[in-house]
């Protein structure tokens, strides 16, 4: 089993790769993690991870600058329906469009827009930085055996924008930050977390292990 972590000049690929390798090891899953900017390699992998740190428009541009990568993603995720995990801006790119700084087209895999979070409490700071619990909206295999809800485990968020999905069925989990903020979206063979599983200690490593075992 080969997992591709896509390198398009954005994000902390080293940490992500190390967390995925650790999850393989700890759970005795037979597999390999490949950090790659080669579209051909991506199409040969069984699981696909799209990380992303920074602004929506910059990340989109970075991805478009890798010749053939968008086509490879469409092929492997849409046509071949292989398991896909977005992380942070990698998740936001799954939306129809992003509204950060400018209006930028996303993949339109999850209908909806990426908008600035607007807490209903003026004392809450933007960005949301830190550890928050998540509330499950639609059950999902990636949250198997992970304690969620107000007394559950915490995930590490660092963001000012989130994906507001058109279809409530595509929201897997939310967190509360002066109102509901999208934490996980997904449908079919694709899922994306707004938080950083590679930095979320126990919850993060468990979710990554569930992804590596996922066979949608």
């Amino acid at each position, binding site marked *: 089993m080969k997992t591709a972590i896509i390198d398009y000049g954005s994000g*902390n690929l080293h940490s992500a790769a*190390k967390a995925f390798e650790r999850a393989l090891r700890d759970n005795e899953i037979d597999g390999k993690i490949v950090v790659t900017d080669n579209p051909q390699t991506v199409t040969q992998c069984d699981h696909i991870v799209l990380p992303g740190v920074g602004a929506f428009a910059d990340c989109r541009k970075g991805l478009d600058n890798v010749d053939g990568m968008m086509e490879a993603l469409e092929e492997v995720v849409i046509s071949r329906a292989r398991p896909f995990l977005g992380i942070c801006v990698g998740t936001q790119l799954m939306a129809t469009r992003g509204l950060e700084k400018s209006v930028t087209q996303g993949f339109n895999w999850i209908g909806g827009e990426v908008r600035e979070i607007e807490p209903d409490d003026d004392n809450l700071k933007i960005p949301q930085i830190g550890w928050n619990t998540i509330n499950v909206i639609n059950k999902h295999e990636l949250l198997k055996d992970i304690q969620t809800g107000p007394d*559950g485990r915490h995930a590490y968020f660092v963001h000012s924008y989130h994906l507001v999905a058109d279809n409530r069925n595509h929201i897997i989990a939310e967190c*509360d930050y002066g109102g509901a903020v999208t934490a996980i979206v997904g449908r079919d063979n694709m899922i994306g977390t707004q938080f950083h599983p590679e930095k979320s200690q126990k919850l993060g490593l468990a979710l990554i292990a569930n992804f590596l075992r996922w066979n949608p």
Partner: protein
Amino acid sequence: MSLKARIIPCLDVKDGRVVKGVSFVDLIDAGDPVEAAIAYDSAGADELCFLDITASSDNRGIIFDVVSQTAEHCFMPLTVGGGVRELVDIRNLLNAGADKVAINTTAVKNPDFVAQAADKFGNQCIVISIDAKRVSNQNQGNRWEIFTHGGRQSTGIDAIEFAQLVVEKGAGEIMLTSMDQDGQKSGYDLALTRSIADAVQVPVIASGGVGTLDHLVEGIRDGHANAVLAASIFHFGTYTIYEAKHYMNNNGIAMRLD
């Protein structure tokens, strides 16, 4: 709101070694920052901060190895500061495994650098580290100014105005150290912390002066900070991260205890 307050142990690293050492657990090598990071990770720290105080530019690259090795073992957020002068420094730290980069002197000298950094890497990873010192007399209104070079060099820049300026330029977080309180163990400068936290929309990390667990509580409750940074009380085992988190939680501050 269920976002938790954060406790951030901070390690001063010079030429790849922890300065003053860490004596809180059975470390084989108390001067090894990676070993200290691993210990703090398993102790439940919410974030870790490395401050690179390497003086010679020849040894500046060593911190990248330290960060990279830490990222291999620790799956927690890592902020790294010290000596960030150019965009490539930020890129290298992020690539090595840092999640956020703290910028101090360069932001004071050139606030537009903050805008360039935020545009390139996103506001969320740009932390501006502010060293402030009280310059007003006791019978005057409060005034703090930015100091550089470890608090020795005055700049004449008002700390609150500077905080607002860097946030406008794109800073995602402020790490605020009181140079008056640093090392005193008598608590944060709460008036300073609150003045800045209330003046900006981004999270503020309180730093400088922690001696007791009550000081941590005060930093959040009275200083309106979102995170509390401390060094010696944790490094020398006065308190564990576990004790600190439970104490804060029992005193009305929601903490992550898992």
